[in-house]
């Protein structure tokens, strides 16, 4: 009898542990994803955890990552839209809205998509009606990032001209902890989605900003950037004689590869300045003078992130560490005006990055 009781208790405990572990596992996965800055993954894991445990920790976790997860799916939807995949784009926008139902901008985008591409999304809509929202949410996968033109960065191998990174609109970072985005006319910020440069690795999309403990500045996604038309390659007529060409070319001192951004017809400005910096390529400068006497020095690069130091004169005013590709940091000029430094591209092999600055 005692043995039987023991067996039953053992079974009950095991079952309880298994059930507990399942929810606990999802929760810890969610926490990990949140810590590494993947709010969309964290959100899905928190949702899984919420099926077992509908308690406070899961609730606050969901509220924390909701904004970032919704922003992520919106940015994915915009990529799909750029590629003409309206059905997939619709699905992703619906997912974003499901995560953040009070996002008026997402709802507007969906309505617009339905209005303009009703036929293209008809199948997705029918499927959604049949499967229901939960099935939809788990069925989605992030989009590949190969639809946008690559953004070559001038390297020692390719020093011709600086070709702009093509960027796609992405959503603003949404307010955390359940705050609602209810301004219909709220300015839409954007995240430049930069395609991996050769040698670079960028599988994971930009996600919710996490404040670096050593910085006081908050990482932000940058303001809207319109896709820049591709430049025609500059073909210079070769008028030099063969002898002259054979002559050794004196090495030029490091020069900043500055490109002034064209102002669009609408008059809305984009980056005030864009520049390539390199630690290895001697034809490129390592630092640049940013806005209002603030200089920016490249410290280190990685596959998908870079470190910078900001100086006002000789005084270092800020360290920017692990700035991810496509993400921004805000800094103040000497007058107090805020500017946004965006990492537009990385070529880690040549330790070269491309950055842009614009008003925050």
């Amino acid at each position, binding site marked *: 009898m005692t043995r039987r009781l023991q067996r039953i208790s053992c079974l009950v405990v095991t079952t309880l542990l298994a059930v507990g572990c399942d929810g606990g596992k999802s929760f810890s996965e969610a926490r990990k994803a949140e810590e590494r800055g993947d709010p969309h993954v964290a959100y899905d894991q928190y*949702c899984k955890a919420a099926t077992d445990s509908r308690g406070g920790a899961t609730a606050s976790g969901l*509220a924390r990552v909701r904004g970032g997860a919704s922003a992520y799916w919106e940015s994915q939807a915009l990529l799909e839209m750029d590629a003409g995949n309206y059905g997939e784009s619709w699905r992703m926008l619906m997912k974003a809205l499901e995560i953040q*139902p009070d996002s*008026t901008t997402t709802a507007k985008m*969906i309505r617009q998509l339905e209005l303009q591409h009703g036929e293209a999304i008809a199948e997705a809509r029918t499927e959604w*009606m*049949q*499967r229901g929202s939960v099935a939809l949410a788990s069925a989605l996968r992030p989009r590949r990032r190969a639809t946008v033109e690559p953004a070559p960065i001038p390297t020692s191998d390719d020093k011709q001209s600086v070709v702009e990174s093509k960027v796609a609109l992405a959503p603003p970072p949404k307010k955390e902890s359940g705050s*609602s985005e209810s301004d219909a006319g709220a300015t839409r910020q954007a995240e430049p989605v930069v395609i991996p440069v050769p040698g670079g690795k960028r599988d994971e999309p930009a996600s919710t900003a996490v404040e670096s403990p050593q910085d006081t500045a908050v990482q932000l996604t940058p303001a809207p950037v319109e896709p820049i038309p591709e430049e025609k390659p500059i073909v210079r007529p070769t008028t030099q004689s063969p002898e002259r060409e054979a002559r050794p070319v004196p090495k030029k001192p490091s020069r900043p590869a500055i490109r002034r951004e064209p102002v669009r017809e609408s008059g809305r400005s984009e980056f005030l300045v864009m520049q390539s910096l390199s630690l290895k390529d001697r034809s490129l400068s390592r630092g640049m003078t940013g806005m209002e006497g603030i200089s920016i020095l490249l410290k280190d690069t990685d596959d998908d992130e870079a470190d910078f130091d900001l100086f006002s004169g000789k005084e270092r005013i800020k360290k920017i560490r692990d700035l991810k590709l496509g993400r921004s940091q805000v800094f103040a000029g000497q007058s107090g005006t805020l500017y946004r430094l965006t990492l537009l591209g990385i070529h880690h092999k040549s330790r070269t990055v491309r950055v842009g600055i614009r008003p925050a």
Partner: protein
Amino acid sequence: MRILLTVFLFASLSGCAESTRGPVVFFLDGAGWYASGGAVENGLRKAGYKGEYEVFTWSAFLGPAQDHFITAQSKIVARRLAGKIERVRKNDPDGAIQVMGLSAGTAVILSALEELPDGVQVDNVVLLSPSASAERDLTKIMQHVRRNLYATCSPHDGIVAALAVNADGRPGPPAGEKGLRMPRKGDAQTQAAYARVINIPWQPSYVGFNWNGSHTGVTSDDFIAGVIAPRILSAEPFPLDRPVLERFAVGSER
């Protein structure tokens, strides 16, 4: 003279009470539960609602059983609410009127809508954890609803799951358990009506809006602000709305 004065005074008072113009929200609490009105109002305000908000008291204050089994089915209570809606509509033919209710309060709302005279409509109806029957025919009721009727439901709602009798006294499972259902033999009018009836089933993500699926948790201000308000405060159709009719048509809900 005294009688005239009294009549004048009453007329003025009642006139003042119903002279509101602009959006109005009526909220009806559950049986023997008088605490949700504040949270619902907070949620709506949080979402930017600036109109009138009125808690319509229908309880007999004799406990939840009395409210659920008797008062919620009272035609007198239903007519009182219908009269109120009618007066507000008369004062402001174009103003938005939203009617929201919790649990047994939803049965009062449905009966009141049935009592409304032809041509009098509210804008949206929100039934939170409704303890009215899921199989109630809403065809006539929907004639008094300009836009949509929403009903939340949850498999974790222990109260509706334990109900022996629905608050409206009609047969069938409570709508708060698995949502409203369209009658199988619905004609074109019924189908048109149910094209505007939308269930909002609980899902794990709602835990983030502080609705863990419980019966009264649905009135959490976060849930009202984040999930309900975007549906009723905007004039535009809400993309996530899936009418009962469409779901019925594809055979996924029943």
